[in-house]
C-alpha cells in the first residue's frame, strides 16, 4: 500500500513538473483582465525606485481606460531583455532604463526607433545632450525623461563656499593642506572607470572613440592618468563605493565627487552639504567632465510591430513629453529633467542641485552606448588599478589595457 502511495505521489510530481514547464512557456505577459472591452494593455519593465515608478504610473494612468499601462519592476533587466526581448509572449512592450545599453539592444534587433511614434518637433524640445545620448547609428531609440551626472560635493563644516576649489591645482593644494591623521581633503572612487572618466575627459581624452576604437594609450589619456596619480596618493587606498561614501558621510572627508543618489544619505547624516561645478584642469583649461546617464523609455520592436499596440505606444510616449512629468520624475529621482521647457518653471529654477546638474551636463559626456563600451569598463578598471593601486608605470599600464580592450572587442564578434 505504502509503495502504491509513493508511486502515486511520484507520478503526481512528474505531472506537476511537466505542467509547470508547459505553463511557464504559455503564461501571458498581461495577466489582468482589461478594464474596458477594447482597452490596449501595455507592459513596461523598469528597475527604478518606487517613487520614480509611482510618478510614471500616475502619469500613464491618465490614458486609462483606453490604454492600461502596467509597470513591472525587473531585477536583472538587462539580461532578461537579452533572453526574451524578441519573444512576444515574454517580452515587455517598453522598458525604462539608462541609455548606455541601447547600442547593444539595437544591434540585437530588439529596439524600434522612438521617431516612429514621436515627431521631430517634439523631440526638439529635449536637451540636445539627452537626444545625442539616445541616438545610435543615426536613430533615436530612447525617449529621454531625466538625466544624472556627477557633481563636486563638499562638507561646509570643513570647506566654505568661498574655498571651493576652482581649479584642480587649488584642489590639490587644499588636499595637501588638510589630509592627515585619517582625514581626507578630497576622496573619490579613484580606480573606477565611471568616476575617473571625468579626469580623462578633462584632458580632452576619451575611453573609446565613437566608431569603437579604444583610446587608452592616447597621449591625452596617459597625461590624465599621470596627473590624476598625485591626487590618488592623497586618498585612501580603497576605491569602492562603500568606503569612499562612508568616509564622506562620517565627516572624515571634506569633499568628494558623487551622483545625486548620494545626496539624501549625506543630508540624512546631518552634513551641511554644498554642491559645486567641477574644478577646471589647469593644464588644459577644461573642467573635469564626468559621464552623464540619461534615463528614459525604449520601445521593443516586437511591440512596435504589433498593429494592436502600435498606436497605444505612440500615445504613451507623447503623454510623457510634457513639463509636469519631466519635473515630477526628476524630483522623485533627484535628477534633472530632459525636457527643456522644464527649466523655465520656478520649481526647477529654485532647485540648486537640478540647475547645477544641468550646467555640469553641458560639459558632461554621455556614456557611450556603442556595444564595444560593454568591455571597456573592464579594461579601464584594470588599467586604473594597475596605475593607482599597483603603481605600474602609466604608459606600460595604458598599452597593456589598450591591447586587452582591442582583444575583448575582437572577441565580441
Amino acid at each position, binding site marked *: 500500500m505504502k*509503495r502504491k502511495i*509513493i*508511486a502515486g505521489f*511520484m*507520478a503526481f*510530481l*512528474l505531472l506537476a*513538473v*511537466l505542467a509547470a*514547464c508547459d505553463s511557464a512557456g504559455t503564461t501571458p505577459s498581461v495577466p489582468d483582465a482589461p478594464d474596458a472591452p477594447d482597452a490596449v494593455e501595455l507592459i513596461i519593465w523598469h528597475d527604478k525606485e518606487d517613487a520614480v515608478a509611482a510618478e510614471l504610473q500616475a502619469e500613464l494612468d491618465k490614458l486609462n481606460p483606453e490604454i492600461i499601462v502596467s509597470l513591472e519592476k525587473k531585477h536583472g533587466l538587462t539580461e532578461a531583455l*537579452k533572453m526574451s526581448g*524578441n519573444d512576444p509572449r515574454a517580452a515587455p512592450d517598453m522598458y525604462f532604463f539608462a541609455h548606455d545599453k541601447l547600442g*547593444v539592444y539595437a*544591434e*540585437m*534587433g530588439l529596439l524600434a526607433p522612438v521617431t516612429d511614434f514621436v515627431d521631430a518637433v517634439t523631440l526638439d524640445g529635449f536637451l540636445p545632450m539627452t537626444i545625442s545620448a539616445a541616438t545610435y547609428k543615426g536613430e533615436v531609440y530612447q525617449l529621454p525623461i531625466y538625466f544624472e551626472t556627477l557633481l563636486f560635493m563638499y562638507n561646509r563644516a570643513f570647506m566654505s563656499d568661498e574655498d571651493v576649489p576652482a581649479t584642480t591645482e587649488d584642489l590639490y593644494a587644499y588636499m595637501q593642506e588638510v589630509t592627515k591623521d*585619517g582625514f581626507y581633503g578630497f576622496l573619490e*572612487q579613484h*580606480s*573606477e572607470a*565611471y568616476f575617473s572618466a571625468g579626469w580623462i575627459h578633462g584632458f580632452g581624452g576619451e575611453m573609446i572613440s565613437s566608431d569603437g576604437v579604444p583610446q587608452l594609450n592616447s597621449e591625452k589619456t596617459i597625461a590624465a592618468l599621470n596627473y590624476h596619480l598625485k591626487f590618488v596618493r592623497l586618498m*585612501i*587606498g*580603497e*576605491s*569602492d*563605493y*562603500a*568606503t569612499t561614501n*562612508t*568616509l564622506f558621510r562620517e565627516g572624515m572627508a571634506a569633499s568628494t565627487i558623487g551622483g545625486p543618489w548620494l545626496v539624501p544619505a549625506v543630508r540624512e547624516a546631518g552634513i551641511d552639504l554644498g554642491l559645486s561645478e567641477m574644478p577646471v584642469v589647469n593644464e588644459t583649461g577644461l573642467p573635469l567632465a564626468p559621464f552623464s546617464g540619461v534615463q528614459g523609455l525604449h520601445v521593443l520592436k516586437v511591440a512596435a510591430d504589433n498593429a494592436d499596440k502600435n498606436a497605444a505606444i505612440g500615445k504613451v510616449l507623447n503623454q510623457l513629453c510634457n513639463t509636469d512629468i519631466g519635473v515630477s520624475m526628476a524630483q522623485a529621482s533627484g535628477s534633472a529633467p530632459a525636457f527643456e521647457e522644464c527649466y523655465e518653471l520656478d520649481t526647477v529654477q529654485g532647485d540648486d542641485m537640478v540647475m547645477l546638474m544641468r550646467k555640469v551636463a553641458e560639459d558632461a559626456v554621455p556614456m557611450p552606448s556603442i*556595444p564595444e563600451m*560593454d*568591455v571597456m*569598463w*573592464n579594461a579601464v*578598471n*584594470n588599467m586604473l*588599478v594597475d596605475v593607482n*593601486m*599597483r603603481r605600474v608605470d602609466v604608459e606600460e599600464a595604458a598599452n597593456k589595457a589598450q591591447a586587452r580592450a582591442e*582583444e*575583448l572587442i575582437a*572577441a*565580441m*564578434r
Partner: protein
Amino acid sequence: MWKLKTDKCVLRSWLCLSPSLLIIGLIIVFPMIYTAYISLTNMNIYNWFDFEIIGLVNYGRALLVFDSGFLHALSVTFLWTAANMILQLVIAFVMASLLNVGKLRLRRVYKTILMFPWAMPGYVSILLWRNGMFNSQFGLLNQWLDRLGFDPVRWLADDVTAFISCLAVNLWLALPFMIMIIDGALQSVDKSYYESALIDGAGWFDRSVKLTIPAIRPIIGPAVIITLFTTFKQFDVIYLLTQQVGAKTGANIHTVLTYTYETAFVTSNYGYSSAISMCIFALLMGLTLLVKTKQRRRNA
C-alpha cells in the same frame, strides 16, 4: 509470473526516479548539451537571434585564452585548491575530534554555532568579511592593529595577503560542511577499537593516524572529492573579495574561472564563452577521472 513481478518492480522504480531524473535532466544535462551546441555557433550580440553553426571556430579561438595569464591562473587554482583542502581536512578533523571528546558539555550548542557560516548566504558573508574585517579604515583587523600601535595593513591589496585573506574566508565558509561530515564519520567508528587501543597504550596521535583516519576514510572520501571540485571552480570568494567591478582592491590573484570571466565572458559572445566553458568542463572531467583512477588503484 516472477518476470511480471520483476517488470512491475522495474517500472515502479523508474516511475519513482522519473521526477528526479527529469529535474536533473532539465537543470544539469540540458544546459550542458545546450552549452555544447551554442559553442559551435556564432551566437553574439551581432547574431543574437539569427546565429548559425560555425563548427569548431570558437574552440580554435578559445585556445588563445589559454595563454600565459591562463597558465598562471591555473597554477594559482591548483595552489588554492591544495591549500584549502589540506587546511580544511586538518582543521575539520581537529574540531570534529574535539567535539567528540567524551565528557564535553554543551556539545550540541557548539555544533549549532559551528554551522552558522554554512547557513548564511555566501555573498553576504563574503561582503561582511570584506568590509567588516579587511577594510583598511573600518575593518576589525586594522582596529586591533591600531590599538596595538601598528600601522594599518591593506589586506586585500597585496597578492600574498589577499590570497591568505581569501583562504581564511573560504575556510570559514567551507569548514562547517567538512566538520559535519567528519563528525558523523567519527561517530560511526566502533568504540571498542579505541578501548583496545587504549589498553595497548596508544596515544591520541597513534589512535588518530592508525585507527581513526583509516576508519573514516571511506566515509569522508566522497565529501572530499565534492569539496575538491567545488574549491577548484570557486569564483565568488576571490571575485567578490578582490576583483568585483567598482571595488577592485589591487590584488592580481585569478583562478581559472575569474580569469576566463574577465577575458571572455564579459564580451557577450556566447558562442566563444561556451567553447571556453566546455574546455574547462573537459579539464575538470579529466581531473575527476584522474582522481577516480588513483582512488580505484589505491582501493585495489
